[in-house]
């Protein structure tokens, strides 16, 4: 595991001077946004539970979680719409306590876009600049520039209700960026768009973020969106951040069953640790019908109940025994779903456990075609699975 939540970056052993590393991996790097032990309670209900998080300059940080996980509440506290019950929020070193939303160096793009229906596109984008008292000629120029960037230069005179969903989304983005905020908060920015438009806009967002050098904090419930957009992801559940890591690490090295199941699909085998060495563990699993061998050590009590997580695409499937000593189990194909680029198999093990396997369809015609009720061997490499203690 490369990083785990709430590791204090400043507590590293020796400062590393390697500047090519991302900021969050450099020891002693100054966070741009610091969330310190922030808790938010609504009456008896704790929406955000003692969260500490550092976000660095130019990051595109995704807060990922289901509904009611507290991600939106955290975002609203950054914008200043809610005050933390306890804890501190520092933006660029300044404590935000008591600073009203209209005074923060932060802008937000709302999930509903919240475009002013009585104002034209241009007036919507100009709204923030006018409040700042920017000269009229500069307002005009900056609004035009911003609308060109989001490719809406020709629609400046329209009212929001005359635009399509995708166009409205871009007006909202332009409006929140035109004041050149240090920190941009995006609440489900792509939620209201259809799938194709969403993919296009994702890359546009990344381009804009890199071009302007603004720090983005994105709230989303869509794991795919988080994976493509983010430099780092904070997975939230019940008001706490369960794991903070880069997209790759969140997927490959989840630190808990919740993260493994929330992001992508996963096969979980319950078992007991029988051998626990520094560089490998052996786990006895009734569900898997034997021993599972994982080539990384874990810290756990002997005989502790653990789960081995195995992604469906990391499993090989075949009728012939691969002759592998470790991590090879037998099962019967119960269902096949051909999805074009890949096939999904549901294999029933002898223990009754169901395993999901996905295989890319390399060739148009695979020599050895699997059908229902075939007896198959499932095998995977020793470094393909992860042991989860939580």
């Amino acid at each position: 595991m490369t990083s785990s939540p709430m590791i204090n970056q400043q507590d590293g052993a020796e400062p590393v001077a390697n500047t090519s590393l991302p900021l969050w991996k450099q020891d002693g790097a100054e966070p741009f946004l610091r969330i310190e032990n922030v808790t938010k309670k609504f009456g008896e209900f704790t929406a955000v539970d003692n969260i500490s998080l550092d976000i660095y300059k130019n990051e595109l940080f995704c807060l990922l979680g289901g509904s009611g996980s507290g991600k939106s509440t955290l975002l609203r506290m950054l914008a200043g719409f809610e005050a933390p019950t306890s804890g501190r929020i520092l933006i660029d070193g300044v404590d935000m306590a008591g600073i009203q939303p209209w005074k923060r160096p932060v802008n937000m793009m709302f999930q509903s876009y919240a475009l002013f229906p009585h104002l034209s596109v241009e007036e919507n984008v100009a709204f923030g600049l006018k409040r700042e008292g920017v000269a009229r000629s500069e307002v005009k120029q900056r609004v035009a520039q911003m609308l060109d960037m989001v490719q809406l230069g020709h629609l400046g005179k329209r009212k929001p209700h005359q635009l399509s969903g995708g166009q409205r989304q871009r007006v909202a983005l332009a409006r929140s960026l035109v004041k050149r905020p240090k920190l941009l908060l995006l609440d489900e920015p792509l939620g209201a768009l259809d799938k194709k438009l969403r993919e296009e806009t994702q890359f546009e967002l990344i381009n804009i973020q890199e071009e302007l050098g603004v720090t983005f904090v994105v709230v989303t419930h869509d794991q795919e969106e988080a994976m493509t957009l983010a430099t780092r992801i904070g997975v939230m559940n019940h008001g706490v951040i369960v794991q903070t890591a880069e997209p790759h690490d969140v997927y490959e090295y989840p630190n808990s069953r919740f993260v493994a199941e929330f992001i992508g699909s996963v096969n979980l085998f319950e078992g007991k640790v029988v051998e626990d060495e520094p560089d490998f563990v052996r786990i006895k699993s009734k569900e898997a019908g034997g021993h599972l061998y994982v080539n990384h050590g874990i810290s756990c009590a002997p005989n502790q109940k653990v789960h081995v997580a195995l992604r469906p695409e990391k499993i090989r499937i075949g009728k012939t025994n691969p002759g592998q000593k470790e991590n090879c189990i037998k099962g019967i194909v119960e269902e096949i779903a051909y999805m074009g680029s890949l096939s999904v198999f549901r294999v029933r093990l002898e223990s009754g456990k169901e395993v999901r396997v996905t295989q890319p369809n390399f060739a148009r015609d695979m020599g050895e075609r699997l059908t229902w009720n075939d007896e198959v061997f499932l095998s995977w490499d020793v470094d393909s699975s992860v042991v989860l203690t939580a």
Partner: protein
Amino acid sequence: MSIQTGSAWVDGSGSRLAKYNFLRSINWGRFAVLAVPSVWLAIFFFIPFLVVFKISLSETAIAVPPYTSLLEWDLEEAYVNLKINLGNYLFLFEDTFYLDAYLSSVKIASISTFLTLIVAFPIAYLIARSSPSRRALLLSLVILPFWTSFLLRVYAWMGFLKKNGLVNETLLGLGIIDQPLTMLQTDFAVYIGIVYTYLPFMVLPLYSALEKMDMTLLEAAEDLGAKPAISFFLITVPMALPGIIAGCLLVFIPAVGEFVIPALLGGSDTLMIGRVLWDEFFLNRDWPMASAVAIVMLIVLVLPIMLIRNSQGKEEAV
């Protein structure tokens, strides 16, 4: 307005279904829905209006009814005599008394409409922002005064405002004033009466406009650097504008012609056209003059309203 859209619809479908029988192309259900209010308005508004208009063109006479008829004929002599008297209208403009009464009515109605708006806005805003379960209760409280007769409520205000009324007694008792204030029979009392009486007509349309407003718009405005006071004027007021216009019309129109409130609460110098009309009709028994006053009042009221509605309709169509 509704009749216009109705006919436009009939035209549209008529051309589309041209090959069908015309009678079949009419949506009879829709026709009936539009016909009922149309007939109602024709019988109880348009025909009486024509009658009043006819009377306004006649002369007073000591007779029953107390005016001359426009048409005189004698079949034996074979003549028909149409006599139209425009003197009443001319007199309206010659005697500044009537003009003053119109202007004073419009002034009193404008000021009290504005005051009603100021009082009603916070009430409507509060109701729109309260929880749905409390909204029903608060709205019913707004409508509650209608359960008592309007006349009784105005009399109650007389009790409050008179020399030895509740307000003066309280202020004297608290030592805030040492002489009772003259409030009854002043314009002040008329304003209070109108604001009090017409408040629900302002609160309800304002509420319905504010209730539809998306609260995140205010957050967005604040996020973009607008202080709450500024976002109120730049966002909330424009969003409530349809309600403001509807409420102001609902208060202004009846307030201009108001008779009971100035008669009971106002003084002898409170000049309002409703009272002039009453006096003309019942004291002078000059029906033609009273009718002319009424017709002009209607035109003075209807024209600006039609202009407002027209411009609104155009804006919505854009």
